[in-house]
């Protein structure tokens, strides 16, 4: 498999946050990690990105063991929940920042940066300062910046959680389209069931640091492995699109 996590474990003090987590993902697919707040999703992502070192276990990407690799050498790029854009640089400087370290000359770098800005629909904004952009635009700059280094794996940590509901739905569709078009492998973290079901090729459900179930959204919907999963998903129905893809989910009435 393209990405493999083997028996990853992480604790802070005597609190085990990620416990014996294993999963794998094919190239070009989008995996959603779904779980309630505090279940260890960000911690997992931080270990894949290299910001935290697992206590035990291995992470393998494209046949290479990257467990001990520092973030700057990992062929992985992350879109953080708070974006982490550099406020003192303008949009194009942000997007091309990673290219500095890849020995790409300035002209080519800017050209490439603009291509990716184009891809996220911000081609007119390359000279804007970050604080002149709206939340959704900042989100897209962060995405373009991560994609511009053309990583083997792109990580997204609840990237849409700071956006309003309507925009979230729109961004979801765009992200999925982009991911399929470019064939990028992505790991997407969310606590939003609908978001996960619509975006995922594969879905893992996490609870208190452990993996509960991993499968395609459809299979999880049809055969939840236990009552926790079915209750957590809380699905009543799924609306299918003509292309056989999930279009909309209908949730149970919340009590």
């Amino acid at each position, binding site marked *: 498999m393209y990405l493999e996590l083997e028996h990853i474990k992480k604790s802070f003090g005597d609190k085990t946050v990620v416990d014996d987590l294993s999963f794998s993902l094919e190239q070009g697919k989008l995996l959603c990690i779904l779980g309630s707040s505090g279940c260890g999703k960000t911690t997992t992502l931080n270990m894949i990105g290299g910001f935290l070192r697992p206590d035990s276990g291995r992470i393998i990407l494209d046949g290479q063991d990257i467990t001990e690799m520092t973030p700057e050498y990992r062929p992985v790029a992350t879109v953080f929940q708070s974006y982490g854009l*550099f406020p003192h640089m303008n949009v194009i400087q942000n997007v091309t920042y990673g290219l*500095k370290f*890849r020995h790409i000359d300035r002209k080519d770098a800017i050209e490439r940066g603009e*291509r990716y800005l184009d891809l996220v*629909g911000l081609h007119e904004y390359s000279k804007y300062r970050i604080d002149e952009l709206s939340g959704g635009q900042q989100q897209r700059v962060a995405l373009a*910046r991560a994609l511009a280094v*053309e990583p083997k794996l792109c990580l997204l940590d609840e990237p849409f959680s700071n956006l309003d509901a309507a925009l979230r739905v729109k961004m979801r569709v765009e992200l999925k389209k982009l991911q399929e078009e470019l064939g990028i492998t992505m790991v997407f973290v969310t606590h939003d069931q609908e978001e996960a079901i619509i975006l995922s090729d594969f879905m893992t459900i996490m609870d208190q640091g452990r993996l509960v179930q991993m499968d395609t959204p459809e299979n999880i919907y049809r055969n939840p492995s236990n009552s926790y999963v079915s209750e957590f998903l809380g699905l009543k129905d799924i609306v299918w699109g003509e292309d056989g893809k999930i279009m909309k989910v209908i949730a149970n009435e919340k009590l």
Partner: protein
Amino acid sequence: MIDRKKLLSNTERVSQNTLSRYIDMIGDHALQFLVLGGVVLFIFYPLFCVFLRSFHSADGFTFSQYAKVITEESTALWRSVFVGSFTSVLCTILSVVFSLFISTRRGWQKIIFTALLIVIMVSPPFVSSIAYIQLYGRRGWITYNLLHLNIMPYNQWGIIAMQTISFVPINALMLNGLLAKIDRSVINSARDLGAKAKDILKDVVLPALKPGIIVCLLLTFVRSLADYGTPAIIGGRFRTLASQIYIQFMGAGNIDKAAAMNMFLLVPSLILFFIYRHFMKKMNSNSSSRRQDAHLNLPLHKSGVIGWLIMGIGLLYSLIMTLQYSSIFLSAINRTGSKIFSFTTEYIEKVFTYNASTLYRSLLYAFIVSIIGSLFAVIFSYYVERRKVRFGSVFDCIATLPYMIPGTCFGIGFILAFNSAPLKITGTALILIINMLFKQLPTTTKMCAASLSQIHVAQENSARDLGAGRLAVIKDVILPGMRPAMLTCFIYNFTSSMTTAGAILFLVAPKTLLAVFKLFDATYTGEYGVASVIASLIIIVVLLVEGLVFLLTSYLEKHNVSGTRTYQKELW
């Protein structure tokens, strides 16, 4: 468009060639070593030298220096405690009153009194003493010319009075910070409920000030203990331990004994320092960051006798201060000793002929300290606060020590530590610059730490993620993000370098004389006209530089914020 094939082949990677990787790693460690080692070498080590030296005699380890201090200097010792306690209580009361007075001003009054406070804050040391002698001295304008009295003001009361009025502004600023945190709605609703202003003062305001009052008492005591300038100038034969150290040091004193004497200042200062840190934490923990009126809605004139007293004392203090500065500026152009005003440029000419180079040197050193000092503080607080280096809290504690270390200790410590190879820097410009830099570090690191928390960790992680090494993160994320903090540090460093005597008087050499030293020297030898000129010049220069930096920042800010592009709505 993006070539999908090429994209998936992932050709360019961050070069993992070992050389650049090692350069980054070594650079990162070197930088860390530089800031942490600097703090140990230039703060801890000098103090340790004083400690060691105090047990030193011709035939090895001894307590005899301590015995000597106790027998020979017991008068000075008790005088220090007496002056310290008296000043501390008096100054704290005055500071509380003055901060209440300032905080309740509004409109034009606020502007005037804040301006006065700013001038006081940028003033060199000894101005109060110079003015005191000019106004109330044996030939003082007020006591002699006006009232025809012939009194000797050179005694303990003069010291206590001068220290008290000099330490008020810095205390009042801190107390103002606390007053600003009091929830305005509590005061307003208490007033709605019919509480009288004086009850609010008693039930809301004073309890909120309590930790600040304790900190004031502690800090003022330590400052008074450490102050050698005031007693040396106006104490006459009344010498405190600190002034005794300085006077003996100048007259080729016994350095072993001086070290032991310093231990009597250092130990209490350190003990009080740790108590201070405890209360400081308490003060910072119950902070509210809500934005609210700066001005305290508490009409003093409706607060009964207490309110009138606060107003009266606040006005009186402001008047004394105004008088003080007028006297300094006037003394610069008035022939000393003349009964009525007699204009002269003699002192100004004297200063510019004999002391111009000293002034330039002060400016130059202050700029160097400001630039290196702000950078040092940013990097130091980055490693301690962000990178969480091991024993970070120990280094942080050492870096905060100079806040409370008496100048005599720091000065003699530097001389003991850096007077022999391989670190022989006594008599050079370097020792002055280093000393000022580390003396100011406690405040600058505090400023940086506060500002560092504004830079989100995600920014650092993003940079690493995109291929930046540790040094590149500092260069591309931390330093640009800390620009506002560095400007604040710059101003603080500059002002302090120009106006603080601290250990400087111990460390200057004939080739490295600074303006503060000349100021002290002129005052000490009774050249009050020259002293007034130097003091006025320092005040003017510092105000000018601060004003320039302020204008520059607001200009830059304006140019950034109102760019030509206006905010556009979502396109997608």
